[in-house]
């Protein structure tokens, strides 16, 4: 009977959505196999009150000044102490900037299996983890041959529990654990965090993404993408071509050398559909392509397409979406 620990990433006591997506999926699994879901919190314990509602049986908290600001080495030590004392079979960690930073380091410390960016979790005597490779051109199933595995989970891969789901709506017991940090001084630390001036939705966490490509013709026209994204509550993405051309920063790039995304809805505007772009977005649940060229490869990856001039369609689509509400 597997026990699955879930690292609850939080800021100011509010958990990241991916944390509760993981507790939900872990709960769905252990409700079939037996075992428990353990939410693990470092620092502010406020998120603990929500853990039961999101599927956790138990919450483990380590509090202390050491957790005031994220640190790769501190998080590694504290979670290694947790694993060493409680022996979960899996530790799930969201594939966020923080999770990707410490999860491999933790796996090395534990000499554990480590599987990144998983989108599927199955158990049949042993765990099998599904994940994309080559940015989604292919998927793998990975079996675990170690007592514990540190598993990265892609945001939006799993749904939250909803009212009425088994395992939802009960309280979880909370206990504290010793993070084993006495006298520990890390080799490095975050000294400052800078947030972009504009409050933008992060691509890898967005439920809807609107991306623009070469079809926009010039940098100034990227505002069409930003305006449509704003109307849809979406994040704004970009093809490699317009990032390389300097129209938008690399943090917007979707594709094999940019971000790999799986939103509910991906709208590709003026993007022809190079293989390396398709790799980064083809796991989106619904894909819309707007492109003048009806033969563009993007239409082969899309669910809905409009083969017309984006300069006419995009403003009309923005108006049509605003009219829906």
């Amino acid at each position, binding site marked *: 009977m597997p026990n699955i620990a879930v690292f609850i990433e939080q800021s100011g006591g509010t958990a990241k959505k991916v944390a509760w997506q993981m507790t939900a999926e872990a709960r769905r699994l252990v409700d079939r196999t037996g075992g428990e879901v353990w939410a693990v919190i470092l620092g502010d314990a406020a998120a603990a009150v929500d853990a039961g509602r999101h599927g956790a049986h138990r919450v483990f908290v380590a509090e202390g000044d050491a957790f005031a600001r994220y640190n790769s080495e501190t998080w590694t030590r504290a979670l290694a102490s947790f694993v060493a004392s409680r022996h979960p079979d899996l530790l799930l960690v969201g594939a966020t900037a923080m999770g990707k930073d410490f999860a491999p380091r933790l796996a090395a410390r534990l000499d554990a299996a480590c599987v*990144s960016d998983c989108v599927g979790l199955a158990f049949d005597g042993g765990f099998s983890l599904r994940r994309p490779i*080559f940015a989604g051109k292919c998927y793998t199933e990975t*079996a675990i041959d170690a007592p514990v595995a540190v598993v990265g989970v892609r945001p939006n891969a799993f749904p939250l529990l909803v009212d009425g789901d088994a395992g939802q709506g009960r309280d979880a017991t909370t206990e504290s654990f010793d993070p084993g940090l006495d006298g520990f001084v890390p080799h490095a630390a975050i000294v400052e965090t800078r947030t972009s001036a504009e409050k933008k939705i992060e691509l890898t966490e967005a439920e809807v993404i609107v991306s623009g490509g070469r079809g926009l013709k010039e940098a100034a026209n990227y505002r069409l993408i930003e305006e449509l994204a704003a109307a849809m509550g979406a994040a704004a993405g970009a093809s490699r071509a317009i990032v390389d051309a300097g129209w938008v920063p690399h943090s917007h790039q979707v594709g094999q050398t940019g971000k790999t995304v799986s939103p509910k809805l991906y709208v590709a505007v003026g993007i022809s559909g190079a293989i390396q772009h398709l790799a980064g977005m083809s796991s989106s649940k619904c894909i819309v392509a707007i492109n003048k060229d009806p033969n563009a490869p993007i239409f082969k990856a899309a669910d809905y397409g409009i083969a017309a001039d984006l300069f006419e369609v995009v403003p009309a689509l923005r108006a049509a979406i605003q009219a829906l509400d």
Partner: protein
Amino acid sequence: MKIAVCVKQVPDSETRIALAAPGPVLDRSGFTRVLNPYDAYAVEEAVRIKERLGADCEITAVTIGPDRAVETLKKDCLAVGCDRAIRVNEPALENAEPLQTAKVLAAVLRRGGYDLILTGKQAIDDDSAQVGPMLAELLDCAQATVVTKLELDEGTFTATCEIEGGAAIVQGTLPAVVTCQKGLNEPRLPSLPNIMKAGLKPQETLTCADLGLEIPAARSRVTTYTPPPPRAACRMVAADDPAAAARELARLLRDEAKVI
């Protein structure tokens, strides 16, 4: 200053994966192989540091790979300014998991006493993004990941790391492992004369036995490779009237796909 750059030869980003049905192996023959694009930023950063520091700096490129990886070391590392190269040639490590790779690289790096270890933020084949932080743990040193700016001072570093919606500034002591992101620099291309001369630079080929290391055991194993889930054919919305097409698309997304 001694800098190590850990690099990997990978199939290029235009590679198509032809996989008709799920199976236990992936046919990797016939791929065009290149330096992992993120490792190119690591190589370039090392060379720029050397250009600033002058002769008092040595760059070692390190890889694990079969004979074909020699080309990557020569053309993409030595020919653009790395001073020497070390390749671990160990057929048992073909398609190794990241922790196996990290353990072998750590054994190589321990021999050199490096101040700075640079590598890409991830390799674009298995996309694991694990080796950098694993190296930092195995070498018990500082790490900074997904770095877009790196400054060095006497025994210390300051790195700008890309995070959701902004950046984190990490400061620490050397030695450190730094994983490199696009935006850090603009990698240069090797010149033909430098490619010719690259073959004269010292290159060492090792096995795990040479490192006094047993081949590390894998902790996980890929059982099945599967093609991506198939997609239904694209439903084209009549586009004679763009405004009407846009309205119809909005309706379909709300009522049929239920995504808005």
